[in-house]
């Protein structure tokens, strides 16, 4: 397994190369002339301006040359300049990525905690009222279109009940904490600013819950089924034959084994969350790369599209890699063997 992981790690650059190439080709093949995003409307018929802009943005080069330049720049961390924001894409992403990561992490925590709790309890009390209700709740989360559930939640909790603040990461009046990790929650904690921490968390709560809810079902379903599977295994019978009380059987024996397959879906869950984050950010005006991606896709800002795609794919790859490593770590059966 160690060998497998090393090979996976060695494979990452190749995958990234493929990802970057696909991202480049896709973004270059977008319909619509990139010039129209760059040249003012009234100057479109001015050949002097048009050629100047082409030269400035490298659009006068043939595609293969542009590809080589793009890849070269990419290696140096330069993803080009966004048509929309007129800033380096890398910088836009660096500014926005922490917001998305904070949201996704919070959602992941909510999703896995609820998912595991529900899965555990519904396996323990199988076919009970709790089991059915909890699974229903979990299933609802992954079946509701997030862009609708988000709106409903916002309406109920923010507009009607006023339990949570509105959209955004912070009240506009507040200044973000000093940038250390980019996670406002952690940064405000590090700064010891409790009020700001509270505000951060209250802003985070609703989008993270809406997003997290969408994976509760996946996690709960898997925990429940792998726990039930584990409970039917011989080693559980052995544990009972040793005189182990039910709690020990469930936690020490069944859960430890059941969590191994659960680990494998965390990577998948992450993909699910990224998808959800794109929509959640759009609804909650969350300044992350999801809303950035939507804006980029809408306006055919292809340096930005390429950049976001590469970063998203990298994050996704790393998440999968982490999952594999965690899986190997948790499962002694594959730790040693090749």
């Amino acid at each position, binding site marked *: 397994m160690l060998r497998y992981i*090393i*090979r996976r790690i*060695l494979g990452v650059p190749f995958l990234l190369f493929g990802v970057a190439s696909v991202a480049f080709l896709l973004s270059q093949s977008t319909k619509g002339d990139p010039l129209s995003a760059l040249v003012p409307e009234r100057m479109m018929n001015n050949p002097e301006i048009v050629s100047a802009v082409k030269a400035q943005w490298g659009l006068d080069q043939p595609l293969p040359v542009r590809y080589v330049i793009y890849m070269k720049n990419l290696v140096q961390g330069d993803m080009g300049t966004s048509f929309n924001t007129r800033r380096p894409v890398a910088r836009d992403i660096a500014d926005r990525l922490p917001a998305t990561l904070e949201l996704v992490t919070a959602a992941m925590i909510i999703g896995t905690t609820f998912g595991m709790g529900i899965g555990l309890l519904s396996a323990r009390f199988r076919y009970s009222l709790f089991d059915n209700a909890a699974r229903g709740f979990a299933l609802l989360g992954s079946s509701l279109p997030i862009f609708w559930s988000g709106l409903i939640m916002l309406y109920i909790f923010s507009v009607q009940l006023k339990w949570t603040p509105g959209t955004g990461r912070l009240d506009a009046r507040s200044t973000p904490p000093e940038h250390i990790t980019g996670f406002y929650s952690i940064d405000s904690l590090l700064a010891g600013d409790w009020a700001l921490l509270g505000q951060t968390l209250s802003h985070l709560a609703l989008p993270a819950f809406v997003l997290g809810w969408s994976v509760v079902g996946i996690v709960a379903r898997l925990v429940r089924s792998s726990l039930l599977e584990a409970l039917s295994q011989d080693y559980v019978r052995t544990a009972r034959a040793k005189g182990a009380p039910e709690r020990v059987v469930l936690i020490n024996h069944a859960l430890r084994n059941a969590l191994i397959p659960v680990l494998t879906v965390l990577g998948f869950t992450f993909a699910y969350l990224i998808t959800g984050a794109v929509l959640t950010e759009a609804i909650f005006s969350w300044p992350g790369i999801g809303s950035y991606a939507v804006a980029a896709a809408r306006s055919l800002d292809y340096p930005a599209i390429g950049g976001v795609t590469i970063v998203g794919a990298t994050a996704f790859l790393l998440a999968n890699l982490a999952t594999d490593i965690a899986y190997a770590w948790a499962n002694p059966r594959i730790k040693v063997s090749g």
Partner: protein
Amino acid sequence: MSLHNLTPPVLDVRNLSKVFPIGSNLLGTKPAQMLQAVSDVSFRVAQGETFGLVGESGCGKSTLGRCILRLIDPTQGEVLLAGTDITHLNAAEMRPLRQDLQIVFQDPMSSLHPGMTIRRILAEGLRLLKLDAQTEAARIAELISLVQLPADVADRYPHELSGGQRQRIGIARAISVNPKVIVLDEPVSALDVSIQAGLLNLLRSLQERLNIAYVFIAHDLSVVRYVSDRIGVMYLGRIVETGRASDLFDNPRHPYTQALLSAIPLADPRAERKRARTVLEGDLPSPLNPPSGCSFRTRCPRARPLCAAERPLLEDTAHAVACHFPDPAGTEATARATPSTLQTGEGA
């Protein structure tokens, strides 16, 4: 039954070896380890004869069986079917020859296509013969009665049959094309004792009627003895002892064969109580990292320095053994009652 030196063998396995690459290195260019599953195995089987291959799990006997059928390509050596070397034939060239060479598998459930009726399963096998529909139907009916099943199983699915019945279908499929040789890979080990006997009897009667040569692979010596004319005992990919069944059982020469025989529990309490028991120490070594010299030396009560240094070769005699210090052939007394050379377990 001493036909084997007189008539040309219908199956002649010569120096067959199979190496499996395991895993691969970091770049995926070379395998990380080589597993020597079968090493330099030779034996011959005459028409109508049963050659039993016996050994414990992991000794390579099933791999050997699959190599003979070219379900796996052997790494080295040759398999001659009625004089034709089939080791180097391609799939298309092999196809007509498959009619002569059939196999019965251990697990009667997984060896039958679960989505096909028995009729279709048998018809699949009969495709080689290219029969017309009517002949085919008649042949299927005949096969079913040959394996002593009621005619109505033809339209059932495998999961609707019992284990013994399924294995009979496996046998019917194998004999359907009138093969010269059938490899039986643990054909009864998944079945209960009461069912096993019926199948063993069936196999014997079919052999008598159809004059088929069997290569009978099993881990159960009693079963192998029951059906085999000659037997090869395998240990870690090699045949360590081979000979006529009676010779081998009455006068085992290799310490491993002796230990195997001694380990079989007898369904006879009085005999059991009297029995001197040889209990081997330790476990089977990993085939990935076999011991030097004689592969049995790590568990052998007779092992001496020579055994580690040099691999004993299999003798070229009727009752051959690959051991530096074998018991002599034909001296029953030494084989059965030399507790001094073996570690003896306490009798009950």
